């Protein structure tokens, strides 16, 4: 009995985070990061880039009502995931788009690392 109530209190106080699944690809110009964040709205989503870390955190907007809950294969959790980013990413140019539970981040590569065509001078 005692442990039941105790463990319940502990669970309530603990914040549980869920790691969203991600797909990442890169081109010569950008890195594209796609994350699955079902139940998240624009208002409770946070994308922060600091030093060499890109942190995505979000709160689910599904109302958690323990009342009447009969069966659950997922629990309402908040999302959090951090990626390391290198110096090749332009910190000031990150685009974010949220569409139907999918967050797409476009990280632009900085000018220095983009491929550059070198003109060859004809010398006779």
């Amino acid at each position: 009995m005692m442990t039941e109530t105790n463990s319940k209190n502990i669970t309530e106080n603990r914040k549980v985070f869920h790691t969203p699944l991600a797909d990442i690809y890169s081109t010569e110009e950008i890195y594209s990061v796609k994350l699955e964040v079902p139940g998240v709205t624009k208002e409770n989503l946070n994308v922060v880039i600091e030093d060499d870390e890109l942190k995505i955190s979000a709160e689910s907007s599904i109302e958690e009502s323990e009342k009447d809950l009969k069966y659950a294969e997922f629990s309402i959790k908040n999302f959090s995931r951090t990626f390391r980013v290198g110096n090749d990413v332009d910190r000031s140019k990150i685009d974010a788009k949220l569409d139907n539970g999918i967050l797409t981040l476009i990280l632009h590569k900085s000018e220095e690392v983009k491929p550059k065509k070198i003109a060859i001078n004809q010398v006779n």
Partner: protein
Amino acid sequence: MYTYNMFNDMIKLRTLFDDFFDTKPGYEASREFPPVQIHEGDDRIIIHALVPGIKTENIDIQLVDDNLVISGEKKDDYENHPYIRKERLFGEFKKTIRLPYRVKHDEIKADLANGVLTINLSKSEDAKPKKIEIN
């Protein structure tokens, strides 16, 4: 001021074990897609299903007897570029949920918002208890 309480340490250990067995990565991968949550009231049922990135035209909901069948296809959105990471899963899915009682066929409401499908069902009149008059 701190008083040592032996039980605190025991509970801590218990939490450690509970975490090991209970903590799951968001939703259970072993379950059929999509993961659902079922809220069951006296005369209505609310089902939440996580379907991120799936459009309404690719989800099909059917009521077969007292089973609710959610099927569809999660189409991949891969671009023609080299991928560094591929974690998301795609493909066709079908899931059958047995409802606890008969529901009104014409009062089923399904909404899709932010990658969450919400299905509202209400109890059928003939499934409700009926008082029988004794003559």
